[in-house]
């Protein structure tokens, strides 16, 4: 993986935080207190921080805030002056009711958290399946961000915005053009919407990375789709993944029309495999529902050490607010 200097510095700093250096933890906590308005989290609580935080409630924005708080607050993921990239699903030119794109309120709440944690700039983009300006107009995300400073919603379809990278541990996707905004960002936050999916069975966090590559058509044509999804998951490591199941497209995904269930839930976590595996329990996706082991790319990614597929090994904190 190519590292910019900034990424390296932030990576080392985050690494330092995660191994639990008490002094830095304290500093991080006070940072969160200063910007997020929450008291510093004692290090004893840090130790039992959940792997996944699941929040159900009427207000999607409140759900996001509670879910991130349960993981230790935004200060854990975003440092001062960071360029933060949110990758929601803005693939389809459908209104939010169609459940094919991430709920705009969820995206806005996350952008606000990032800004409050000191982000210098929040970039929100996708490579849409439909005509870009129609998608941006219809899906509601661009509109809801109006008035938020340093936040940019856009699409990138021109090949000029992508750089060819080599995936070291790839099985099929050795070379892939990835959006430079992802490669150069300090903090990547994946914000998929929970959908069933024709070819991949479900489209949660890992499947969402198809929106950061320039030539995804070859994933169907020249590669095995499931292996390619696992390949890119070994390379793109989000600091945080938040699955929007405010409403989920349970069948007929990813473009709809299909059955939509209002689950009023968001799931947040740092382990992309665990998050996708947990997402399967939310609704009977594809009609009958899937077990984590039914999803080939999850099995493959878990084998390659991207994350944990076994739900029993995870600590899941559930809140209803």
């Amino acid at each position, binding site marked *: 993986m190519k590292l910019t200097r900034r990424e390296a510095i932030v990576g080392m700093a985050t690494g330092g935080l995660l191994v639990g250096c008490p002094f830095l933890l304290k500093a991080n906590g006070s940072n969160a207190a200063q910007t997020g308005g929450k008291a510093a989290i004692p290090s004893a609580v840090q130790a039992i921080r959940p792997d996944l935080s699941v929040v159900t409630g009427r207000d999607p924005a409140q759900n996001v805030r509670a879910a991130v708080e349960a993981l230790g607050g935004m200060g854990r993921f975003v440092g001062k002056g960071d360029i933060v990239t949110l990758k929601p699903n803005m693939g389809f030119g459908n209104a*939010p009711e169609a459940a094919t794109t991430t709920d705009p309120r969820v995206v806005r709440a996350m952008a606000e958290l990032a800004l409050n944690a000191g982000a210098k700039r929040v970039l929100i983009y996708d490579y849409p399946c439909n005509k870009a300006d129609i998608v941006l107009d219809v899906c509601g995300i661009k509109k809801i961000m109006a008035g938020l400073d340093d936040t940019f919603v*856009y699409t990138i379809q021109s090949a*000029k915005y992508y750089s060819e990278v080599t995936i070291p541990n790839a099985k099929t996707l050795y070379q892939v053009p990835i959006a430079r905004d992802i490669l150069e960002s300090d903090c990547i936050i994946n914000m998929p919407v929970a959908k069933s999916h024709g070819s991949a069975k479900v489209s949660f966090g890992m499947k969402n990375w198809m929106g950061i590559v320039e030539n995804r058509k070859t994933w*169907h*044509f020249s590669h095995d789709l499931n292996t390619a999804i696992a390949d890119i998951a070994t390379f793109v490591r989000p600091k945080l993944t938040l699955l929007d199941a405010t*409403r989920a497209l349970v069948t007929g995904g990813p*473009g709809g029309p299909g059955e*939509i269930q209002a689950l009023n839930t968001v799931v947040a976590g740092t382990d992309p495999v665990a998050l996708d595996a947990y997402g399967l329990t939310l609704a009977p996706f594809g009609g009958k529902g899937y077990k984590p082991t039914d999803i080939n790319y999850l099995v493959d990614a878990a084998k390659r050490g991207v994350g944990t597929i076994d739900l029993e090994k995870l600590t899941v904190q559930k809140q209803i607010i």
Partner: protein
Amino acid sequence: MSLRRGVQIFLLALFIALIALTRWPPSPVEVHDAFLRIDPLLSIQAALASRTWIPALGYGAVVLGLSLLLGRFFCGWMCPMGTCLEVGDDLLYGRNRRRVWPNSARRLRYVKYGLLAMILAAAVFGEALAYLFDPISWMTRILALGVWPLFSAIVNLGLEALRPVFEWLGWMHLARTQFDLSTFGFLGLFSLLFFAFLLGLGRYQRRFWCRHLCPLGALLALFSRNALFRRRVENGCDKDGKCFRTCETGAIDPKDVFRYDSGECIQCGRCVSDCHKKVTSFSPSLSPKGLAPSTDLSRRQALGWIGGGSLTAGWLALNPARRLTNDATLRPPGAIPEDDFLATCVRCGQCIKACPTGCLQPALLEAGAAGFMTPIAVPRLGACNRNCNGCGQICPTDAIRSLSLPEKISARMGNAVLDPSRCVVYERGRVCLVCDEHCPFGAIDWEENERGDRCPVVNETRCNGCGQCERNCPVEGVSAIRVRPAGQVRRGAGESYPPFAGLQEAEDKKNHRPQGYSYPP
């Protein structure tokens, strides 16, 4: 700058602005096609050829009526082609410089009258030819298909060059903006070359196109022969000949400067301003003195042109390719039945410019000889967006009907047909249901084969023919799933469309959502 040049530049700027604004969603006031609507040649031809009343005939009649009073004011003051050629002439060859041909030489003037006769004869036989020679039609095409994409390309290069600056300033939207260039095809290039050719003709005479070739000019000339506003030269003229040397259209008789061809005069007023004795004026008058209109076209020649137009129309109608293409061409949703469509479409290219996905493209010969430059749908380049009905709202002659969104969806373009021999699932056992993913109507089902692959199958009753599947199919080259016009639904003006079953089904499914979610809250 004279008053006339001011008016010309203003109207040209307006024309360009209207074309730039021809986009989806369209402006609430339908003015983008104002110039095409007031063009009498286009509306007369469309009405004759399709044998229907075209509302724009009313505007055309106003222009013709005003020509009875004011002469060819349209050519001299309003026509965007005339303005461009005049300014081009000034810049390229100098305002008063000598040209290859003497300014008063009549040479090819009859050609424009001949073309007019040919166009009208072909229209009587139901075929449209005006678009090949009409200046407004050409100017719209030149701008919409040629200049606009090139302009966007230049803007893109500029944006690309300034990107580091925008990023440094934090203007991320500008740093990530690139304009779509999906309409600059062969015909864009062709229309630019045609315009360059017309500018080149300026070497021979000023406004060469307007004098010799323009059939709209010929039509207006016929109405302007005895226009009320007439040129008058008082006694005191010293016959220095400046007027006939600088006349914008060479209308003044060099042997007798008191006489002029009133059908050729475009009311530019140069003979008045250039007259150093100040004896020339234009004023309303009924006196026939000095009027010398002529079409330079003998009766025999006229019959020849009419015969040519009729034969062309006959050939276009008999051409076997016509019968093939009638059933093989994907037309925009809401296009009226093919014969009427070909007769009514003026090939202005506005629908192509407005199409937000690049689905509409100008046909070269894909739609047969008679379909040259008509819009065809090419889903591989861009699917028809289900939320857009722009082409019908933009079409100035209603060759594409202006439909509400549900009506437009009922006006199906065709049916998707899957070719298993090209599909990566059937052929290679790959994991792919991209056609299903993109189908907005859920018209792709899948069946598991003996290998356990999910193979796509088209459900024809739910298929709208929008082409999202063809657009997004990952197979390289020709898509494995293609929209064919077999299931197309085309109706003439006023007829209603049978409601599209798939729409109701899709809506029902959408409405199936449980309580508990709403947006905006």
